[in-house]
């Protein structure tokens, strides 16, 4: 095994779980999320050593692949059975599981691109320009999707949702 491949393997080992979570929040299906991560990291393998910031590249590729997966016609997508058969028993308290299921359902009601913007900005901590670059859209669209995504989430959950001060400052600038 070459040094380059060893580096790539180490990178995948440390980043895979985070990327799966990122893809899941974007597309809303663990199976589809895995497909997106697999496709994105396979692409990164071919570019390894030529990419300046592998973390940012992988994050962007995974989110884009997850969005693309949601657009694929249903007949070209393998059916996921993840919802029907849990992969492993839920280890934590019932209330926590209920909360999580509730949260996931709420997130799934937010349009996929709005959700992607919220995830990149508030979970991954990307700025408006960075999010716009990652999703290849204008900064104005990122701001609009942030506003609309937050509004939708507030309406669905029926609670006030706070965002970081840095992001609020961006809103002010809209």
């Amino acid at each position, binding site marked *: 095994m070459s040094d380059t491949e060893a580096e790539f393997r180490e990178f995948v080992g440390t980043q895979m779980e985070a990327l799966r979570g990122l893809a899941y929040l974007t597309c809303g299906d663990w199976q589809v999320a895995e497909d997106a991560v697999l496709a994105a990291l396979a692409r990164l393998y071919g570019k390894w050593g030529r990419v300046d910031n592998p973390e940012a590249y992988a994050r962007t590729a995974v989110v884009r692949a997850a969005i693309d997966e949601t657009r694929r016609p249903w007949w070209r997508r393998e059916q996921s059975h993840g919802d029907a058969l849990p992969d492993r028993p839920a280890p934590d308290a019932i209330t926590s599981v209920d909360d999580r299921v509730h949260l996931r359902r709420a997130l799934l009601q937010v349009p996929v691109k709005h959700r992607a913007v919220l995830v990149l900005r508030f979970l991954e901590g990307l700025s408006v320009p960075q999010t716009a670059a990652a999703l290849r859209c204008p900064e104005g669209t990122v701001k609009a999707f942030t506003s609309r995504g937050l509004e939708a989430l507030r309406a669905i959950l029926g*609670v006030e949702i706070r965002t970081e001060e840095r992001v609020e400052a961006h809103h002010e600038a809209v």
Partner: protein
Amino acid sequence: MKLSELLEAARAEPPAAHFTVDDIVAAGRRRKRRRTSGWVVMAVLALFVAVGVPQVVARYSRTPADVELPAFPRGTKPFDLIFSGYLSGDLRVGDPDWVSVNNQTTYIGRKVIGVRAPAYRSAGKLALYRPGFKPKRLWQTGGITPTEQIGGGKAFFARPATPDDTRTDNRADSMLVWEYAKGALAVVTSYGGLSRPEMVRLATAFKLTKPRPALQAYALSWVPPGLRLVAVEAGRRGMPTSVFVPRAKSADFTIDPRVDQATVTTGSWSVPLRDSAGNVVDYGYPMAVANPGYTPIPPGGAVVGIYLARMAGSRPTPKCELVVPGQEKYGTECEAAPEGDGFLVARGSPALPLAQLKRMAGSGRITGADSKPGTWETTRESFPTSAWVQRD
């Protein structure tokens, strides 16, 4: 509840992964092998295209004199779009981006090598003028070089004239002018990077389409009596800018192809849309960086733009203020939130009374849904008839 904590909670406790690091490395290797063999096939094909195709084409191509100049599409109304985007080698011509009472324009982009598609860099502009309209002082009369007919129409190369307005960002270095339909001129303008053969190739590949109206997702019910609607942005996907000028200047208004708006108003190009069979149905459009409504205000006129989203800070009634406080010469800007789910900005020159600009902004209403062109109205239906340019 903090959003970052909420998102963390939602992705917690994932099911066990169905693949390992080995699976990813194996998939990466397979992909690399496929791409390497793909390049070999492409190289062979490229050799055939470079050597074989020109010989076949030369043998069977017709002489320019055989081609008949098409007629301008019948039934075309003001603000109807008469062409669609197309590709020519590594150059890409967008769908109509701006349409005015006398011409319609779009960007010409060149594919950037070494960057993931789609990435294009502004290379020039295509402008089509309505039949009978000849642009004034667009090219120098002294520097004309006739060339072979294009699509049955006369053609010549010309040197661009310097714009009257020296503030504009003039990037034009050469032009190809040709008659694309009976009595109607088109111009390919190069911003320094288009060769003459490429300009001819772009012009030859151009095709007229059935006219279709430029659509708007909003309407204004009132426009100041002295102003006329002269141009609308067709490439904004429902969030367009519209431009108004005083009646006296409206009949000759054109979008100037010498100005590369891509440097200030666009970032990258959108991904081409494909139908379910994989065919490209829309070659996309340059993605805007500047917000709708933020194009230069013409002397004595106004520009209006809208976002189809509720934005922080929008208000139900127009709020107007000087663009640069204390500097009236820069004009006034009014913000409004028609029906509470959009954000409209109307920007007026200092010559336009504030009360009129305010009334104009307040008359805006949303007429269509975001990203649903089927719900949008035609440009003619979206503005009062008093704002139309009466040509005859």
